């Protein structure tokens, strides 16, 4: 017997793998699958498209530019940027109820937060509360790494320095003006607020920032961003977090507040409103635009006609294609002979 084994010592293994006989699934685009498949996909897409389109239609959006380009605008006086602490008002009227929870956004146009240097110029170590980087911020933060006196800037970098600092108050004009309460809690991402950004552990907070200076554009240091709420300060300031989540495109909106006050929880009733704007953030020099946007949302997010329309178009094209394929198939059947 050993001799026989020796003779076949080189015989390759006879397994499905080595002999390339693994069981396999081999899809073939046969008419019986493709044509009904296209019809089904088409119908499904049209269905989704209609649903999306209707949903999107039901979302109300109110968008108002307050840059102050036109001389008629109340904010025109502020747009030049010459008046310190300039405040202007934006009036609007609702003819019917603005339903649902209303979200208050600010929007910027022609603003390149997506520029590489803009995004890169920040120190995530600093922002996660590592005090070592308070004294020596990363070099990527230049030109906002150190100030002229060589004091480290905290938070350093272009991203933080350019933080949006217009503030808004909303009033309903009924029997004088009635403040619509704006809720600034929970407008940042959960992961940003709870993990990514950390304040240094020191009490009071300001002690940790000894020897550092605020970014040059800021009027207040980072630990005094919200004087009304102590916990909303430092790197965990909600507005700061929102700003630091960098926009991907030059036209963007960021959430400013939610309107959750008891009278307005289910929407803004019809009537006249005014937004009081503390106009601090200059955009005219680079032809930028500032907006406020009021919007409600649905299960699929904000208003977006594109998605619904796209689904409808793709679905219809599928149906058309299936028709074409059916005709072609009926005329020229697969030749079966080889």
């Amino acid at each position, binding site marked *: 017997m050993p001799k026989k084994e020796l003779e076949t010592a*080189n015989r390759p293994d006879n397994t499905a793998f080595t002999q390339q006989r693994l069981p*396999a699934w081999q899809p073939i685009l046969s008419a019986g699958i493709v044509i009904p498949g296209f019809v089904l996909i088409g119908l499904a897409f049209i269905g*989704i498209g209609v649903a999306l389109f209707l949903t999107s239609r039901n979302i109300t959006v109110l968008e108002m530019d307050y840059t102050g380009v036109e001389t008629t605008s109340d904010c025109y006086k502020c747009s030049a940027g010459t008046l310190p602490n300039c405040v202007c008002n934006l009036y609007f009227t609702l003819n019917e109820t603005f339903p649902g929870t209303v979200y208050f956004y600010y929007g910027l146009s022609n603003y390149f937060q997506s520029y590489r240097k803009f995004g890169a110029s920040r120190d995530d170590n600093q922002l996660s509360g590592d005090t070592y980087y308070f004294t020596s911020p990363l070099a990527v933060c230049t030109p906002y790494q150190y100030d002229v006196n060589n004091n480290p800037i905290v938070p350093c970098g272009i991203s933080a320095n350019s933080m949006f600092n217009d503030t808004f108050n909303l009033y309903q004009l009924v029997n004088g003006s009635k403040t619509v309460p704006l809720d600034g809690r929970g407008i940042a991402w959960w992961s940003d607020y709870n993990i990514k950004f950390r304040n240094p552990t020191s009490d009071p907070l300001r002690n940790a920032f000894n020897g550092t200076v605020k970014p040059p554009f800021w009027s207040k240091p980072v630990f005094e961003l919200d004087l009304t709420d102590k916990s909303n300060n430092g790197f965990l300031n909600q507005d700061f977090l929102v700003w630091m989540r960098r926009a991907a495109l030059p036209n963007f909106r960021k959430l400013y507040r939610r309107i959750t006050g008891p009278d307005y929880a289910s929407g803004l009733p019809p009537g006249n409103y005014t937004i009081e704007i503390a106009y601090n953030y200059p955009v005219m020099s680079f032809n930028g635009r500032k907006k406020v946007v009021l919007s409600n949302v649905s299960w699929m997010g904000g208003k977006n006609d594109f998605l619904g329309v796209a689904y409808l178009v793709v679905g219809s094209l599928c149906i058309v294609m299936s028709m074409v394929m059916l005709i072609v198939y009926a005329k020229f059947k697969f030749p079966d002979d*080889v």
Partner: protein
Amino acid sequence: HSFFPSCLLIEEERHVRANDRNYNDKFFYADNHIKTSKYNVFTFLPINLFEQFQRVANAYFLVLLILQLIPEISSLPWVTTTVPLVMVLVITAVKDATDDYFRYKSDQQVNNRQSQVLRGVLQNEKWMNVRVGDIIKLENNQFVAADILLLSSSEPYGLCYIETAELDGETNLKVRQALTVTSELGADILKLAEFNGEVICEAPNNKLDKFKGTLYWRGSKFPLDNEKMLLRGCVLRNTDWCFGMVIFAGLQTKLMQNCGRTTLKRTSIDKLMNTLVLWIFGFLVCMGVILAIGNTIWEQEVGRSFQVYLPWERPVSNNNAVFSGFLTFWSYIIILNTVVPISLYVSVEVIRLGHSYFINWDGKMYYGQKDTPAEARTTTLNEELGQVEFIFSDKTGTLTQNIMVFNKCSINGNTYGDVYDEFGHKVEVSERTACVDFSFNPLSDRKFTFHDSSLVEAIKMEEPSVQEFFRLLALCHTVMSEEKNEGDLLYQAQSPDEGALVSAARNFGFVFRSRTPETITLYEMGTAVTYQLLAILDFNNVRKRMSVIVRNPAGQTKLYCKGADTIIFDRLDPSNEDLMDTTSEHLNEFAGEGLRTLALAYKVLDRDFFEEWMTRLLLASTVMENREQRLADLYEEIETGLLLLGATAVEDKLQEGVPETIACLTLANIKIWVLTGDKLETAMNIGYSCNMLRDDMNEVFIISGHTAAEVQQQLRSAREHILGLSRVSNTADEEKTEMFSNDSVFEETIIAEYALIVNGHSLAHALEPELEQVLLETACLCKTVICCRVTPMQKAQVVELVKTNKMAVTLAIGDGANDVSMIRTAHIGVGISGQEGMQAVLASDYSFAQFRYLQRLLLVHGRWSYFRMCNFLFYFFYKNFAFTLVHFWFGFFCGFSAQTVYDQWFITLFNIVYTSLPVLAMGLFDQDVNEANSHRYPGLYRPGQLNLLFNKRQFFLCTLQGIVTSFLLFFVPYGAFSLGVRADGLHLSDQQSFAVTIATFYFICLFYCFCLRSCYCIGLDTYYWTAVNHLFVWGSLAVYFAILLAMQSDGLFSIFPSQFPYIGTARSCLAQWSVWLVILLTTAVCVLPGMAVRFLKTDLYPTLTDKVRRLQKASRKQGPREQNLRRVRRTSSRRSGYAFSHQQGYGELITSGKNMKVVHLHLAPSDKVRALCKQVRDGLAPTSEERAPF
């Protein structure tokens, strides 16, 4: 005369002094060491890295790495390129190291063979230590270690026998003879050690059949020629020992000089890939320039005023915008690096390695009898196996087994050899057919098989004609017998045909036992009978017959003759006419089966007549003038009035399945040329039995001119004949003439079948530069091309001719050292393994044991490899374009600032981890058509030959598709999310979310495409989903999500906050309905159009593959249905394929007794005749050693 003491000069002639090392060392001749490996332990790292960085892609990545270290332009951290680069380098280095190790092992095996070298005393030395000028001793059946000059041997007259199969493929024995002066040295070690002759000879060259030199010894000069040389690669046979002096060693031996340079073979896909990589570089630079210009403009128009928030680094500088553009250019070169496929080469190599393993593992290419599996020795050529257009095949040992088998015979009008069943039907002879029992004969050869027992019965009945038939076979030949032990006979035949016939006679009870110059001893049915050998009328090409004249113990003188049937039939006694007709019929039958036939006849000689004839023969042999002619006339005179005995049919045993394989490969539009060292007749015979030549062919052209003009004339007329005839026949059919508007199309569509046979000496002329085009044109018009008597270098030249002029992929297949040059020259070299010699296998790219496996290698493995590789490349380029170009579109929205769309980790792992495995799985396991159908429809091989599946056009298509996909990938999410808001009102259009969403879109889209994709021209879906594909595809998807979530997890962030800034993004995005809706939409938009187009295409213009696939699917539903290839029928009825494959016989050597060791004279023949015989012999014996005429 002067000689050159320096090796720096080109060696013009060689001076070697025996046993004088100091003298020989002055010339720095190559020693006998052979090295084919490239590295050693210390040089490996530097040399290998140097080689690897010569690859454009690798060098590029090195430059990229340096660029990334410059902070101003580093748009990506350096890890992103380092990780893939290191992985690629390591994988390649490991592979190179393993390859080189195996080369080293095989070198070692050859270098460490033992040989006996005379260094004062005989001592064992390794081959590699043998030096020029050494005297070495060879023993029987040993390989000759170097090119040596024969000094002395164990045989008389300093003769020795060698087999040169390794050199020229001829298996018959050749004689070499030492100079008389040196053969007198014998085995005397002392004398040999004192031998101090000096040889002055030609410089190393590759001419196997020429050698020119002079031996200076004891003050005399002796001319040396090839007849005194034993070349490396020969095997010593029938000679106990011999001594020789090494003239050329190692790489300077004729064998090695014939091997040609080892050149790295590269496939056409390789070359295409390199071109494409260069184009991609060009594309990359263009993109970089466009984006850099964009950046300059943006900085000028927007950035200048946006400095409030985004200050310029050198605000004073006027040229800042331009400088920023310049930096951006480099930044984009870094970002867009993923378009240059760094992992391309390594993936391609992994795929090829996998395919090679599939070849090694293939049980259907394993030859059980010799325990030899197929072996892919080169792992870089697999896909080219799917594009072969020309096969150049050796004959002996490749198409044939080089075994001659006595198959059938016709004796006195009865045929023997066919087997019939009980109903009288002919039975196909197979392995299982019962063999005839030869146990009655103790001297029979066990290996001999015969299936028709009626012949044994006839011989047992002692039928006189049957007895005479075998007696003739036992007597009329020039075979030498060797009897080591009692009854253990070994025949040394000059040609395998003769051996087969003598063996047949042996088994049927007429055993040729021994011979002396004057006698032949047979054992006829157990009793010893000694015949006196009176004359051998030897074979030559003109006579095409040989005869012996013997006297049996009864005193009867008989002439036995065997030869080509036409020749014999002319010399028969008129009384034999009836028998001749019957035998002739039988011969037709035999020839029709492709057997090599001989007719046998005898004649009883009148004693007086014979003695008178013998006297005249003696006379004729002593005259110098016209001796040949006079001898021929005398032979002619006595070989008349013969009585026909019958005919033999010998099968030059083809390897199993050769005709079927050739038929199948021909159907796959592969042209097969046979290049053989054999004679014209033998080659043609095999041509007929392989079905390459057929009787129904319109014309078989034989080119055998001896001058260039003749050859040209013959080739021209053949070409005109073909073109002329076809044109005439086509003009009748008007539609067809329109089709054949140009010659190249015309060439393809010639309906008539022609064959071209070129003789070696004509080929030498035909391969001259001015004739080679004519040769090529003519040859390509013919269905079959056979070149015979071809030297190894000519084989290579023919291959080279086709390779360079036809732009087609060539494959050479052979088994011997004479095929090495052709195997090296062809795009793909295949060696037949399991034979004695290893040279061909060592030089080959693929090796297996049987010619028939070639069909599987090409039609199954080759086709799959090509198909898979093309799919892989298409897909690879596509995925890289789709991935990378998103950055281009994003450039318009980020101020052309080289901002990446993706997470840096995604870019790092993209090529190596995320996308490599599914693509690899496709490249390894995909099968469009299963193996049975690959065999059944050889037409499926066509796309590979036409290079349809991946070419520049396909590359443009895949680039275009990549661009479209990247456009959709960017703008669908853009449309959906530009002002996107989460369902809880939080914004969603931030850069990180965008990055994750696009990456995920891309990824899922890629996988959907992977499942369902289609392309506009050819079906490039993954056709074939095995468990491994499923594992890799779904595994990769799972790995993607796992890594995505892990990279953006809380844990990693808390350790390296600045390396993993994307924390939480995936969780946030993937929880959104709208994200999934967009993924669905993007996928549909990317996949569906292609699918529709593909469907329409299959419907309107189905390819053969589509049809076969549909059939395959249908037949699977019906259950397996066996459908064998029609067995190829031989229809040839060609005559006179006679079984003499050697040229001039051994007659002279035998009768002169030169090759007899001991001369025993058992019987004393009549004195007069003996004296006559002796005189004849002396007169005939050639002066086999010539004294130097000076």
